């Protein structure tokens, strides 16, 4: 396995990361996100599929999509997602992770 899914973020990964970052670093964003992830994500230039992954804390799929792992980790700690779920979601995509 390789340490990183992408050598430099794609535009899509940029916007996933933008959400994961802003929610925990911009005044009022965590409250807005918690109140309604769908409303929070409405103006973000990401596909409905990717937005659903974010909303559903689909950690493994977001990892494969190039989300920065540190942002993903901090996001889930910040939302109080149980660690066992977090790790299980990642383990489930082991076969699809980048190798070589």
């Amino acid at each position, binding site marked *: *396995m390789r*340490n990183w899914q992408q050598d430099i973020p794609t535009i899509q990964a940029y916007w996933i*990361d933008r959400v994961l*970052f802003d929610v925990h670093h911009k005044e009022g964003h965590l409250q807005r996100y918690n109140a309604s992830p769908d409303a929070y994500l409405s103006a973000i230039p990401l596909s409905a599929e990717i937005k659903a992954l974010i909303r559903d804390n689909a950690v493994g799929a977001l990892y494969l999509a190039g989300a*920065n792992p*540190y942002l*993903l980790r901090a996001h889930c*700690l910040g939302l109080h997602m149980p660690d066992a779920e977090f790790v299980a979601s990642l383990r489930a995509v*082991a076969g699809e992770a980048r190798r070589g």
Partner: protein
Amino acid sequence: MADLVGVFAASHTPVMLNFPDAVEEADRSAVYDEFRKLGAALAATKPQTVIVISDDHLHNFFLDNLPAFCIGAADSYASPAEHWLAVDRHALRGDSALSAHVLGEALEAGFDPAFSMQLTLDHGVLTPLVLAGLSRQVAIVPILVNCVQPPLPTMARCLQWGRFLSTAIRSYRGCERVAILATGGISHDVATPRMGMINEAFDREFLRLLELDDSEQLLRFATDHVNEAGNGAEEIRNWLMAHGAAAGHRFELQFYRPLHKWYTGIGMARWHTGDAS
């Protein structure tokens, strides 16, 4: 002219503070004890300022301006950056005069650091200082290396930065005693399918090569094998900075234990720069 009185390295992870009970009591006590020992050893070198080499875990920096190396240049640093980190908020004292010196010397010497007068430091800097009992004692200069978002600086460049730091410290006239604390690593994965696995063999070999002090072998190993040790192992860059700064002084491993429940191969070490040698 300041002396580099000691160089230290220690792993960091937020779970040591957030999930203390995730590991056996014996492991937790051992790690906490060893951090206190490291803190005592560092304090015994009587540093006026500690240069803390770590990485920002994307709290201060983002993809809109991600520095390869950033030198903190403030008199005070709020912490922690993580609203979810289980630690009491407190400011770390800075040493902006030493920061300005290192920054100026770096630019003169052909390095290209960013600088920051306002950082809210995260667990990378805070956790080891808190566990070592030093977070309210020492003044610091944080140097933040990009270990968290490719493209990353090379392992070789980090060693060069370390060598430079040693020179810059020795040319500083503002105080007499400076120490270095590098934090991060060793083998671990953060939010990857391998999370919780630890490549102990990688860690043992990396530590052996630090002791052997053969730069070429060390860089070759770090560069070629870091992908086997996890994305968190990219933080060995911080250890290589320390190693470069300690240039040829004796390396001593203080502690190593792979703690799967804390997701991390936890190491602590020092280089004896302060001894006559």
